[in-house]
């Protein structure tokens, strides 16, 4: 009898964090030793408005299971209005992704300030849990670039 080893699903999660608030919030989560799963990998961007929808599509194409964008709270953007642009762009993009079959839960925009280490960790724990329940993201696989 052959026993197939069931491999535990570990999601791939890309988090775009703005340099001024959320990246600092992530650092604070670290300083306070607040745990969240290692599946989350952070990419530092100057502002949430730097996140091009292309980056998110690329991440899903390359096999990401979830993408989260974190920026300063509305009204607190280092560049005044960048997070508002991000919010608008992502609202449009996420509904388009939903239409393509990438569940809305796989994408998220969150506001995390530099003082909210606990919120950052909680958000990431929650997001990873959501994605783990959803399972692997198979959409866009056909479009996946072969090396």
């Amino acid at each position, binding site marked *: 009898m052959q026993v197939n080893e069931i491999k535990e699903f570990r999601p*791939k999660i*890309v988090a775009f964090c703005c*340099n001024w608030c959320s*990246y*600092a919030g*992530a*650092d*604070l*989560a*670290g*300083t306070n*030793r*607040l*745990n*969240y799963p*290692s599946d989350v*990998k*952070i*990419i*530092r*961007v*100057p*502002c949430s*408005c*730097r*996140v*091009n*929808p*292309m*980056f998110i599509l*690329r*991440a899903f194409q*390359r*096999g*990401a299971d979830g993408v989260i964008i974190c920026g300063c709270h509305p*009204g*607190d953007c*280092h*560049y*005044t*209005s*960048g997070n508002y*642009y991000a919010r608008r*762009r992502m609202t449009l993009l996420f509904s388009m992704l939903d239409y393509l079959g990438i569940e809305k839960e796989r994408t998220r925009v969150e506001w995390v300030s530099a003082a909210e280490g606990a919120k950052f*960790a909680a958000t990431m724990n929650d997001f990873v849990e959501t994605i783990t329940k959803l399972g692997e993201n198979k959409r866009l696989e056909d479009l996946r670039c072969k090396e």
Partner: protein
Amino acid sequence: MQKIGVFVCWCGSNIAATVDVSAVSEALSHEPGVVYATNYQYMCSEAGQNTIKDAIKKYGLTGIVICSCSPRMHEATFRKTAAAAGLNPYMVEIANIREQCSWIHKDMATATEKAIILGKAAIAKVHLNAPLTASQSPVVKRALVIGGGIAGIQTALDIADAGFEVDIVEKSPTIGGKMSQLDKTFPTLDCAACILTPKMVDVAQHEKIKIYSYSEVEAVKGFVGNFEVTIRKKARYVNENVCTGCGLCTEKCPQKNVPNEFNLGMDKRRAIYIPFAQAVPKVATIDANYCMKLKTGKCGLCEKICTAGAIDYSQKDQLIEQKYGAIVVATGFNPIKLDNFEEYSYSQSPDVVTSLEFERITNAAGPTSGQLLRPSDGKHPHTIVFVQCVGSRDTSGCGKPYCSKICCMYTAKHAMLTREKYPDTDVYVFYIDVRTPGKNFDEFYRRAAEEYGVHYIKGMVGKVAPKADGKLMVQASDLISNEQLHIDADMVVLATAIEPDKSARPLATMLTASMDTNDFFTEAHPKLRPVESPTAGIFLSGTCQGPKDIPETVSQAGAAAAKVIGLLAKDTLTANPCVAHSDEMMCNGCSSCEKVCPYGAITYVDKEFRMPDRTVAIRRVAVVNEAVCQGCGACTVACPSGAMDLKGFSNSQIMAEVDAICK
């Protein structure tokens, strides 16, 4: 292909306890382009930095990746290290394996795995890094202060005392602003003129300060450190350098029927006037709208009687061009117009006055020489009703949604002073809330209510109606006893909401400084950079940024001055090289980027392109002003053709990181 060196830091046991550092450096050494990988206990220490420097020289590294703490901690350190070894500082990338890895994960296997992935992402990014050079631009050592109220005065004095030239542009004939119209100031009750006018004299006598009174800013070009400003000096028909301010002309002018704006139209002035006795500069001004000589050519009396020969009817507006390194906005406020508040009968009864008018009535230099008299019949009022929040905290659309902040305190002051001077007067104050956040403010309010017997009633006034006997019927509700009140008042004083001066909006457009929906200037950061505009080189002072009282205005003015001094003390400005850049071959001049830029850093030029068929085509292309761009990247996403990119965080760099993470 880059030659990349990887340096993994243990950070003592901070990283090494949960991340297998030698496994990380070993794994990363096999990445393409990596020619050297090592790990060391403390990379940021001198020995650690020397390891990096030696490796850069020995292996001819063109890029380095440091797996260590957050770039917010030591990015600057390692950039300096790279620069010291002759490598461009922007060829350094940091993989954050402490705050975002070792400190949050307990399991060594997963933490090591993650650290390797973060390292790979940084390597993928550094492959696409390009050396960046920060541009330098010279700083013009002169500041412009727009607005000559207490905010502008204090800012100008502080900057000038530090040894820099300052110009004040004030649109009215004198500096002094709203504070010069006030009587006493809360909570200490010292008289506004006694504390303001010496400062005005200091400004006039300061060798580093030049006042452009009766002038406005016409145009602003340039950027931080190098603004080119055009100032329109309006014709006042009096030679400022010759006029002695004797005031003879202002007594003899036959045109006596001009509403005196300094007393808010409650009395009259002449067509040639000096706004008030302590005006700075103390120079007469002819009001061209009323002067008979300028309107009809007949009169000329002032010219005949002026012993100094200062009158010049042929004077024209002058345009002055000047360069500045920094601009301070101090345009101040005005009480709102009360057209939307007919229920208070402001336009129907002269005995319904705004608080600023009441301030003039109680001022010794005011229309009644400081005696509290009803404007309608000049009699002493025995019952005065103060109405708070007239147009403030009003979300109905008639007024302003914000709290005007100063009204609670000045109403307490008015009520207290009235009771002190005229104990026979009944004083009622209707309020929604009494807000007294400030040093000694609540004590002051309690004194008004408890010691001076001012009747504070929580509730709103519904209607003020003039009665046949000359009194005013005030209809109000008392929310605590839940009663309807009818008070026969002799005077009603409206604590009118304040709004930014009307000149602020066009000025903001000229300066490309951002404003909120209420036309207050927005600050670069509401908590951490409260006196700077998001636009570099523009600073905010006083009520142009939000309602505030005098102590707060003066502290903000000093803070703005400190920021300006910090800027002007530099000979050159080093710009952040991580700025947007447009590829002119791809740009189609669509203006999408310009619209999203919060700093107005993008302009368009017509550029000649040589086409393959040897013809020359002219196309409109975007150009980024690197001194103005702050590097947020909003334009890069808005650009439909992909021409706009951000140095240091380019599309390809971020894509490479995404690829490395998702592999």
